[in-house]
């Protein structure tokens, strides 16, 4: 099920959002990617850093995070396999947020100069990377709406729908069962909710038969019901073939 090489993970993701041709695939396969494993809650890059590389998530769940002046954490987005959370670092030299592993994660580092060279020579690949950052921005817009305006129950259902949908679209899960070994506290930091309320919302979704939880696994038992409960519309994820992935 898992792709064999780190460039395959990247290629698969780019293919879900843009038209990548065979010649482009060969170029992408040649990108030097340095793999590294991290435990959960490791800062991969910190606010203020000036990285000379970007990274692709190969396995695990990664989050971009910001801290308020009094130390409260807001997780501002999730990233799954194939995503490049800090691709904007290619053009914005100083990091304006932290990007951390939320679960154990395997990360592939790609030097900025390597990405620049490829983008200069292969416009379709440059376009694919551009689309990727634009879609990340669309995900942020949805995130703000979710956290700012939706009730906690809808908010929780929405984030579960997004994670399951994104994991499915890059082939990480075949059904509606996602392994999400993240704490209730981390979910609270993502949703702007207290841990106690996160706990309550998960149980309400469970009681209504929409999800089942075993250990760190979340199973969407009633996908259509969860989509409805979460006010979830996939338009903002801009997949090329959204119809294939329900």
């Amino acid at each position, binding site marked *: 099920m898992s792709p064999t090489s780190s460039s395959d993970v990247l290629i698969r993701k780019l293919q879900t959002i843009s038209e990548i041709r065979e010649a482009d695939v060969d170029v992408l396969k040649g990108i030097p990617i340095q793999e590294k494993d991290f435990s959960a809650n490791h800062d991969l890059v910190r606010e203020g850093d000036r990285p000379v590389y970007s990274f692709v998530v190969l396995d695990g769940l990664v989050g971009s995070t910001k801290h308020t002046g009094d130390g409260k954490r807001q997780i501002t987005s999730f990233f799954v396999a194939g995503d490049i959370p800090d691709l904007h670092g290619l053009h914005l030299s100083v990091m304006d947020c932290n990007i951390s592993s939320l679960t154990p994660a395997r990360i592939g580092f790609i030097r900025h100069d390597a990405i620049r060279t490829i983008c200069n020579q292969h416009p379709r690949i440059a376009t694919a990377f551009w689309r990727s950052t634009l879609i990340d921005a669309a995900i942020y817009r949805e995130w703000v709406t979710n956290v700012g305006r939706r009730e906690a*129950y809808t908010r929780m259902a929405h984030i579960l729908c997004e994670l399951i949908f994104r994991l499915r679209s890059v082939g990480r899960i075949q059904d509606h069962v996602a392994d999400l070994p993240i704490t209730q506290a981390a979910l609270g930091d993502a949703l702007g*909710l207290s841990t*106690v309320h996160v*706990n309550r919302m998960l149980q309400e979704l469970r009681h209504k038969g929409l999800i089942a939880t075993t250990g760190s696994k979340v199973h969407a038992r009633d996908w259509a019901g969860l989509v409805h409960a979460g006010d979830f519309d996939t338009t903002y994820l801009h997949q090329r073939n959204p119809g294939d992935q329900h």
Partner: protein
Amino acid sequence: MARFYFDSGDRDLFFEDEIGVECAGLDEVRRAGFEGLIDLTRESLKSIDGQQLFIEVRDENGDKILRLSLSLQVKLMK
């Protein structure tokens, strides 16, 4: 770290916590309960005189150790 169960509700509805939340001690239980009550209030408080919302915490033995509650008074002054 120990697991604590945060039951919650109002006069009509009782929600029993079957999963629980891990907390490092009583101070953290109290803080978690208070933050939970704020979220509960934001979501569930209706403009009904006398409405009461509460969070009640049990430890792993099932003993009740903390109750936080608030109630709303609505009075027409004219």
